[in-house]
């Protein structure tokens, strides 16, 4: 069914990618060679049995396909949409060598959407174990851990500081990439499994640390929500936003529908977005939908943009202008922003990340007019809870240090997702959470044997 035309999609926040029709899905599934040693599976961080679910789609047994995916991935409708498939499953697909790879993500999304429309069947839960588990944060990591542990029969309570569950899936990734009813359906399913989600509860405050540690186990999935600023002059001017603030105002608070909704966002004619990742692309595309002319400033080259290729292409189609090999040095204005002064960057020696190091070119400064600046230069773990967990080991960047199974240095306290890895991806957060949940389950079962 393809993508909606640019003119149409700039007028709303509806999904850009329309997904596959049943016939398209079957045709795509039939391209799969059903490899005996499927390389695609190795590319998937949670090792979904990709050929098996694709075979079910080819047989038109879409529900069975969805069930197979769900064995390994609780949020297929989400991952099918936002996974960087081109460097994961699809990047490894054998067909990709000569031709285009099987569109695994699109097929995953198709099966998941089909299942949701048919109405979810709540998976069977193990008998109650009487063990209480606290989950902090309701992003993909928290949701995954909650589902795994509820399925194992433990009594699970999720604490979320915002008024909606979902983490970045709700407040960060815009609806035109990930419709919010898709996320809500997944969360509702969790509620049906008996998981209690307490929104408006900030762990470390509404739930003090001793109360938290009184649970039989604690899983921390608080993400990497702390926005970084560039620390350049003029950053305090009105109209300078972190991407988190800008996206939260729109995605979570619906500022695009102000004054019907009470939360405003600045009405800007010209916006400069700083950064080159998914967050920057999302901010730029949201700003385009709010009617602004948008320039994205990134210090490296086009080929270095860390965002998903497809999103860069869509951003371009939607009229986002790119100022590459440029870096802001100062935000201009008196009370409100009027522009951004940038300097050209030159690509020099290769740095540790294997990419050329950008260095400023003397005397190359230029100004881009703007009445809004959005900084999307990265974010780190929120230290709020971590600092209160006396004795927990954390790294230089504030991330909780864990072993392979998500164990922290504190007894019975586990962590996964962005809070452990630093800002990463949805599927990695889920993969980590699943391992941690299994380790928690084993620990709780051993406990019971011990008694």
């Amino acid at each position, binding site marked *: 069914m393809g993508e909606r035309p640019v003119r149409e999609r700039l007028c709303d926040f509806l999904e850009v990618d329309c997904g596959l029709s049943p016939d398209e899905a079957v045709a795509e599934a039939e391209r799969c060679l059903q490899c005996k040693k499927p390389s695609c599976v190795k590319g998937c961080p949670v090792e979904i049995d990709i050929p098996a679910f694709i075979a079910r789609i080819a047989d038109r047994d879409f529900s069975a396909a969805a069930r197979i995916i769900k064995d390994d991935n609780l949020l297929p409708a989400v991952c099918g949409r936002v996974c960087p498939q081109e460097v994961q499953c699809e990047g490894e697909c054998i067909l990709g060598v000569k031709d285009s790879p099987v569109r695994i993500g699109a097929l995953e999304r198709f099966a998941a959407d089909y299942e949701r429309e048919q109405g979810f069947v709540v998976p069977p839960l193990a008998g109650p174990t009487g063990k209480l588990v606290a989950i902090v944060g309701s992003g993909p990591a928290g949701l995954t851990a909650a589902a795994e542990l509820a399925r194992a029969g433990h009594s699970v309570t999720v604490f979320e500081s915002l008024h909606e569950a979902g983490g970045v899936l709700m407040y960060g990734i815009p609806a035109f990439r990930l419709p919010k009813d898709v996320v809500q359906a997944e969360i509702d399913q969790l509620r049906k499994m008996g998981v209690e989600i307490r929104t*408006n509860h900030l762990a470390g405050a509404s739930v003090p640390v001793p109360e938290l540690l009184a649970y039989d186990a604690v899983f921390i999935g608080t993400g990497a929500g702390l926005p970084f600023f560039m620390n350049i002059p003029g950053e*305090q001017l009105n109209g300078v936003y972190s991407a988190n603030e800008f996206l939260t105002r729109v995605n979570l608070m619906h500022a695009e529908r102000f004054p019907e909704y009470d939360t405003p966002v600045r009405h800007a004619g010209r916006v400069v977005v700083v950064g080159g990742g998914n967050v920057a692309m999302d901010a730029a595309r949201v700003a385009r939908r709010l009617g602004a002319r948008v320039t994205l400033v990134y210090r490296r080259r086009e080929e270095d943009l860390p965002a998903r290729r497809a999103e860069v292409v869509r951003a371009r189609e939607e009229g986002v202008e790119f100022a590459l090999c440029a870096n802001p040095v100062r935000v201009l204005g008196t009370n409100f922003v009027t522009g951004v002064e940038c300097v050209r960057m030159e690509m020099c020696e290769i740095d540790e990340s294997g990419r050329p190091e950008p260095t400023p070119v003397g005397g190359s400064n230029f100004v881009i007019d703007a009445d809004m600046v959005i900084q999307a230069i990265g974010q780190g773990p*929120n230290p709020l809870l971590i600092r209160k967990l006396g004795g927990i080991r954390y790294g230089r960047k504030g991330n909780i240090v864990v072993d392979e199974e998500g164990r922290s240095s504190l007894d019975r306290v586990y962590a996964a997702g962005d809070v452990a890895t630093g800002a990463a991806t949805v599927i990695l957060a889920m993969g980590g959470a699943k391992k941690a949940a299994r380790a928690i389950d084993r620990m709780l079962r051993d406990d019971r044997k011990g008694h």
Partner: protein
Amino acid sequence: MKPLYRVYEAGQLADRIFQIWVEAPHVARHALAGQFLVIRIDEKGERIPLTVSSVEGDLVRVIFMAVGKTTNQLSDLKAGDLIRDVAGPLGRPSEMGQYGTCVVVGGGAGIASCPIIARAAREAGNHVVGIIGARNAGFLILEDEMRDACHELLVATDDGSRGFHGFAADVLKQVIEQQQVDCVWIIGPAIMMKVTSEVTRPKGIRTFVSLNPIMVDGTGMCGSCRVQVGGETKFACVDGPEFDAHLVDFDLLMQRQRTYFDEEKVSLERYHEHACRCGEGSYHG
């Protein structure tokens, strides 16, 4: 399924100043002096921060001045009404210690935050002097409560309609001339905090102010609330809201508070229109 928070009691305290007691055990049980909560009245509402003014059992009291859309809508709530979201307690509690003599200065709606701090300071073993000031007697709140919480209470109004004729800053100046003062809290509008904290600067008296920048999440996630303190960027919601008054860039705070001036006007006008048409305070879509 989703939580709703019941208004237990609501009423007016002074001109445009209202109080609400809301049932929110997760906040009430853990809130300390100096902390705040975030309220979102309904599905379309904005998240706004309000100081925890007092707690009793599972109830929290907030006191606010009806200035814009959300605070006006809040002032229209009655006992029994439901509030969609209440999150907290947020921010760091007041830095309490045994300082000696403490002065707690409140201006306008900022007086709301004072009794809880005064009580905490007294419990910590300090001699507590309260100063409350308002434009006129009609704007003055919590006088009895403050008298109760403090060892001494001084009252000032700009027009002399009650107590001392003048500003809270003038009263504070007299107090620090007459006695040894070790620690001061000043809470009120940004301009009042700026002016009043100049009084304690020459003597280097430890002075706290509670900053009120525009917030969204209140948990350190958006940076909307960033302020400059001692030349460093701080997030008021997690690093504050109380900071060393003598290090705060108040002009910047006031500049950033005006970010949505035009939008706030639109929002309030729209609310008043709807409120009139429905013949009642609540607004539905």
